[in-house]
């Protein structure tokens, strides 16, 4: 299970809406409890360094990645994952996402439809290199 602080969730959505129609990307920081529950306390938005079609692809530069690792150390957080947006597409990982996916990381995908926030979901790679959905526990109940 993953718990995303409401303000952090809002920051991610704002980044995704602001970057539309391109894909946005960034890092997730927080703590992992002993029972495996992840608590996302902050994000770090970074540039989409993909050369070419940023509407369908994202890439994070290695230097931004190293900055993120350092950022986690500085705040005594764990680098728990990555978020990115799917413009005009549901928040379901694509084959591109799966191929490049790292173990351990939570992959939060924010779906933006026609410039407006639609929904977000989180995914985690299993031992067979396939994504499994990670339940997001929102503070609010529907």
């Amino acid at each position: 299970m993953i718990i995303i602080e409401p303000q952090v969730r809002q920051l991610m959505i704002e980044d995704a809406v602001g970057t539309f129609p391109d894909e946005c990307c960034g890092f997730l920081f927080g703590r992992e409890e002993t029972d495996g529950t992840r608590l996302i306390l902050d994000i770090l938005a970074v540039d989409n360094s993909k050369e070419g079609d940023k509407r369908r692809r994202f890439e994070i530069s290695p230097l931004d990645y190293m900055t993120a690792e350092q950022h986690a150390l500085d705040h005594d957080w764990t680098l728990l994952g990555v978020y990115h947006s799917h413009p005009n597409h549901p928040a379901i990982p694509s084959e591109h996402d799966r191929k490049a996916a790292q173990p351990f990381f939570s992959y939060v995908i924010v779906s933006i439809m026609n410039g407006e926030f639609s929904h977000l979901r989180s995914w985690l790679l299993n031992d067979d290199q396939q994504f499994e959905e990670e339940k997001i526990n929102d503070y609010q109940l529907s």
Partner: protein
Amino acid sequence: MATVIIPTPLRKFTNNTARLQVSAGTIQDTVNELTRNFPDLKKHLLDDGGGIRSYVNIFVGNNDIRDLQQEHTAVAEDTVISIVPAIAGGSPDQPPLFTKEELARYNRHIIIPGFGMEAQQKLKKAKVLVIGSGGLGSPVLLYLAAAGVGTLGIVDFDVVDDSNLQRQVLFGIDEIGKPKVEAARRRLAALNPHIQLNIYNTHLNSGNALDIVKDYDVIADGTDNFPTRYLVNDASVLLGKPNVYASIFQFEGQVSVFNYTDSKGNTGPNYRDLYPTPPPPGLVPSCAEGGVLGVLPGIIGSLQALEVIKVITGVGETLSGRFYIFDALNFESRTFNIKPREDNPINGKNPTINALIDYEQFCGMRAVEEKPLKEITAKELYDWQVKGEKFQLIDVREPHEYDIVNIGAELIPLATVADNASRIDTDKKVVIHCKMGGRSAKAIRELEEKFGFTNLYNLKGGILSYIDEVQPELTKY
């Protein structure tokens, strides 16, 4: 000793250690030492050929080794080596399948566990041909259109009649007299603008069936007669399409899934396995003759739509290999198992049918129709009446029909015609009528065969035609 910084995602393979000390040398030496000490790291650092994976970057200080001497880059005592996973991804290449409006429309499907987006996508990609847009076709089309089946084909030759509206919920009074397929298209397009509707305002027959059926993934048979049912079955089997079948009569309904190939490649039985031969013509009356409770096609057609959705999505167990019967009077359901027959002429051991045949003939219709039958039109009958011609007029409908409307004929219901043959004149012309001309034709055939009558005339189009042509002020039913 040089220092290697392990990225967070790979620390579970290094006993949660972020910084490791390695002996100096080259990057290649470093990678070898790491994978020797922590074998689980190997698949994340190296590809199948033993080279460094394209998704892994190795930095010496702030420089990518690709910009230095690659894996031969020297590592000194104070070097800090960072393993940096490439973080990348993106949306699928194909255009998005659903718009925002469609996602909202199908939300109650998408959120069902075990159905979800995957099944909804299959519905959108599916092409379903619904044959007959009447009692069964109405609920089938309404529910499949509402569910988001991407392409629906509708075959019907008929026009909307007021007597259809007791059960054919696709239509309204404004559409009486209009082709059913056009009325259906208007209604369904108003229900779901996100789907494609193809209409065929034609009789399905041996000449056009394969051409129409070939473009679809699933066939839904909602026809009301045996020749078309065998035709739909054979076309489905010849083209390898699943055929979701339903039929209704009075208070009883039947549903099955024919010619369905499961995920293991096994194809289930078809209509000819259940009914190798058609019933003798006239034994089983149509709904127009025998009647049907209006809500029954609503129930059975909904079950048919359900099976279509299961066939498309692969969710659940279909009725393939099973035959379901619902008796509305007693509220009883039964499900029988059916199996492929070795002597099935279309796909048994020695198939004899490899193309569509003449289904009217197969069902014995044509042979009967070929017998000459004297006919009289409503206008001609009226002329006889006006001129005072001597003839006897007999009505073979049921008493309750007679009470609704009659044209002054003697009432002898079809089932009692033989017993009442003595009431029928032999020395002058006799005109026999029913509602539409079907039952009166049967009565004439029976009287001719059993008693040798030669003076019988069938009123073409029955009392309905007479009302249209001669007395429009009378009640039609």
